[in-house]
């Protein structure tokens, strides 16, 4: 190291020590501002000046002095910032402008689908339901056969299935858990069954190869279609709106009979007919029905003694309607700008 560069490095150390002392002693933020200009100012800063003069040094010296100068600059910068924040904090502690933004912590949000699933489960809990789950990888037996889908039945066309191997698949609905519950517990059974399901559907605004579903199953002696209507009506009025109109339409599912689609009065137009409900005034919320005796027989339940009902709905679709999401992919994107809006949501 040449003499000139050694001198400069020593000068920098002195500058740094001096700045440290002055910054430590400062009690006003404008003093700090002045010190910043003195040492780091672009035109007349003393550290800046040394950095500017580097070009007059040889390459070796330039390296040594440059490094020292940059370190000094960073150190003084950090000291200034810390001291400034401390003075600022002290200043607003005594005479705060309370219109300035509050200090925040990160707050996380539940996923919109979780919000919907939890609310559904909680409403049915008030009707004596417990909450159960089951595996997502299943056998054909549990996903189809025991649910009264005969092999080769055209109803299978509605379930475009992803297979894992011969006779094994990704469940296309949560209904296999109905079978598992019926096989594991003697009635009375009252359960909600949330979970993910898989269908071989290409991605678009309203389809995803994986989606959430929630089912309910009730089995006991003397359970009837009237009980089904009462439970679903109670749910709809709590979930959608008190006094909402509910309509049961005949439909078909292999594992229920009689089967129904349940509509509620369109929440956009309140029955007048609008583009969202395709002019019908109703929007479809779930499928439901009385458990088909063939399912009871496949599960070893006495179909003469016990009757029951089941229902199923799509929390993803409901979340999209409720929160005005136009594209199902938004549920899977994990875009923090979307999720931040659900911090206080229910």
């Amino acid at each position: 190291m040449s003499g000139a560069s050694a001198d400069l490095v020593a000068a920098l150390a002195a500058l740094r020590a001096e700045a440290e002392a002055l910054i430590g002693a400062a009690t006003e933020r404008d003093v700090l501002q002045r010190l910043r200009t003195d040492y780091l100012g672009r035109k007349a800063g003393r550290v800046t000046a040394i950095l500017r003069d580097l070009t007059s040094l040889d390459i070796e010296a330039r390296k040594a002095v440059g490094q020292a100068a940059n370190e000094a600059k960073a150190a003084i910068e950090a000291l200034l910032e810390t001291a400034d924040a401390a003075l600022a904090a002290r200043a607003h502690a005594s005479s705060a402008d309370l219109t300035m933004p509050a200090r925040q912590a990160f707050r996380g949000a539940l996923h919109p689908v979780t919000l919907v699933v939890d609310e559904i489960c909680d409403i049915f809990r008030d009707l004596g339901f417990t909450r159960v789950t089951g595996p997502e990888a299943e056998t054909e037996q549990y996903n189809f056969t025991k649910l009264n889908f005969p092999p080769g039945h055209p109803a299978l066309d509605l379930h475009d299935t992803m297979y894992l191997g011969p006779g094994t698949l990704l469940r296309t609905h949560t209904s296999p858990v109905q079978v598992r519950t019926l096989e594991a517990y003697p009635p009375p059974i009252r359960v909600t069954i949330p979970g993910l399901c898989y269908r071989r559907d290409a991605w678009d605004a309203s389809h995803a190869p994986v989606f959430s579903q929630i089912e309910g199953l009730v089995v006991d002696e003397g359970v009837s279609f009237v009980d089904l209507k009462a439970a679903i009506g109670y749910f709809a009025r709590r979930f959608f709106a008190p006094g909402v109109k509910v309509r049961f339409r005949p439909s078909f599912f292999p594992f229920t009979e009689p089967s129904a689609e349940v509509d509620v009065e369109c929440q956009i137009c309140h029955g007048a007919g609008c583009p969202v409900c395709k002019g019908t005034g109703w929007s479809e919320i779930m499928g439901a029905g009385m458990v088909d005796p063939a399912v009871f027989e496949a599960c070893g339940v006495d179909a003469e003694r016990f009757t029951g009902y089941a229902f199923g709905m799509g929390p993803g679709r409901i979340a999209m309607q409720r929160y005005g999401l136009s594209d199902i992919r938004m549920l899977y994107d994990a875009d923090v700008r979307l999720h931040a809006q659900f911090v206080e949501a229910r």
Partner: protein
Amino acid sequence: MIASLRWLSDLLGTRLEAAAVRDRLAMLGCPVDAMQSLHGGLERVVVGLVLEAVKHPNADRLSLCKVNAGGAVLGVVCGAPNVTAGKRYPFAAVGVTLPNGITLERRKIRGEYSEGMLCSAKELGLGEDGEGILELDTEAAPGTPFLDVLPVADTRFEIDVTPNRPDLLCHAGLARELGAVLGRPVRLPAIPGASEAPPPRATRTAGPRGETAGVPVTIEDAEGCPRYAAAVLRGVTVGPSPAWLTDRLAAIGARSINNVVDATNYVLYELNQPLHAFDLAKLAGPAVVVRRARAGESLVTLDGERRALTPAMTVIADAATAQAVAGVMGGASSEVSAATTDLLLECAWFEPRRLRATRRALGMSTEASYRYERGIDPEALPANLERAVALLLAVAGGRLDGTPVDVCPAPIAPRTVTLRDDRLAHLLGVAVPRADAERALTALGCVVLPREGRLTVQVPSWRPDLVREVDLIEEVARIVGYDRFPEEMRPYRPSVVPDDPSEQVAGRTRGVLTGLGLHEAMTVPLGPRHDERAVGVQNPLSQEEAYLRGALLPGLVRRVEHNWRLSERDVRLFEIGRTFAPGEGALPVEEIHVAGVVTGGRRPRHWSEPAPPDVDVFDAKALLEAAVRVACRGATLAAEGERLVARLPHGTVVGWAGTLEADRPAWAAPLVGFEVLLRADAAAAPAVRPRPRSPSVDRDVALVLPEASVAAEVEAVLRASAGPLLEDLWVFDEYRGAPLAAGQRSVAWRLVFRAPERTLREAEVDAAFQRAVTEVETRCGVRRREA
């Protein structure tokens, strides 16, 4: 199923209203997905009465008319030869836009103003007739909306027919369903131009062989084809269809091909009966043999594809080769052409499951196969063939040769189902009056015999879905109307099924992690192959989503990268979901995991302080610790290399935390995360210690740790050797740098001593403290740092 309102109306002999039909069908179980008025754009066309029509002074072919269209009398220039005073025509006033897109303007034609237009059928999009204006056979007042009097107005429905109801895949079936609630019978509309006398019914054979017009018809494969009827027509002229037929097909969106094809399609959509017409001259023999395909046999189908056939498939063959894949598609070589004069018309019933297997093996689906695989009415064959013959004779001429044949080796027994009164009430929850049940079933075509406490019900042959008692219960409920059953909350017994503990743990974990500022994400469990042992989907939609995840973190990292692309710097996400690994048996092993990722600042930036430092691995450690406490009880953490690893007491690794690899932009903070198994153990109630009544005494010690030494080990020795008075201890500082040697560091602990029931003496604290320090110096190779 696409249906025409007009067609349905004709079958029920009444004029149905479109919205009413839509609502009725919905409440019967066949929702209308879309409803389209086929005369869109005609809403503003009205009935115009021509008061006067005189020749245009400046043009020979034009007339000057005075028209009453409900308001002031208008002057209209008309070019149609048929305009006649005193008659009514569709009238479009100035400003109306016609279906062809033209908006009428007030303009001068050869010096005379025209205030609108009298329209032809073509101008209204109602047909090809553009020769003259459309004369209306109505007494409706001038100005009446044209659609109210239009004789050809129609509405097209797209109806969602469920797979159990093949009988609804035709107009007669839908009309029968509507008729059951409207109380109207279904009658087939007369065929324009058909002879008064219906053609003869097919003669039923007892065995598998029959004959019509000298053509032998044989069923060799009675399993695949239980019934096969055929008729021979000679001298037909293949050509265009009459307008009524093309209009009817156009109303449901079917294109007219020629009169023969159109006639068979008409019967398909009216009666749900697929038909096939062979060119008789092209059939070797001529003969018809219904048999299984031979090994190695192939056939070029109507679409020009050569199809390889197998003995699992049923074919219609002539004396030599296969001529059609039964119920799926005909063969090209015997296709009806413009030169065809003689037809063999097939009207058959094929076994649904065999047919479905065949069409799947061939990778094709047709209107015919769609219906056959769902099950058509086996008893309707003779009547359907009769209708088809009458229609063909009316639209293509020629004559029926001989009597049609109906080969049906085994009679089809009618199905009888018993419905118990008490079961009906039991399942539906209210007693349905027996008369209502009888009426509902009878309206659907059942033959009902009342017995003591039950009904014996013979179900119609077009309802393959009515097999069991519960099927009839549904029919009664459906026709009575689901809305007639009360919503009455009745007593119930609570569930015996316990709550799934993993759901409870997941719920608490969500609460903990959202509280720590992480948003819950839901990522797709499918992705590209991540390792050798990945569980794969056999028929994936794409290679990008062909394997099931083995862990949650890779999916979360992709979501962080997505947020980085949106310029978000603070990204904090977690997920609870299932992972998959190969199992012993056929099914993979599933685990429920919880994982989280954080990047960005340690807290949100605030104006009162400098930007907070970025997250590092100790933030991931904090999250892992929190997750372990709530979701993986009993696991302990250990540092292994760059990672923290969570293990159960017996050593199984159940999770980890650390810095994550990611495609990170230069401005982004480091990405750290954790993943751990979610265990279904319910959390134990916390063992609350009583609040101490005696004061504590603190002692601090700074220890210089050599490079290889870790804090946890030192702390363990301190804890073990400080004796029972030590209540707690924790690290409160770390220092590196001069005067310590490189690689060394000083770590400072605070030790808190307390005796529960008394005040400690300095001496005993000093003794315990000194014992701990000495012990740790000897055993851990550390030395106390001088203050």
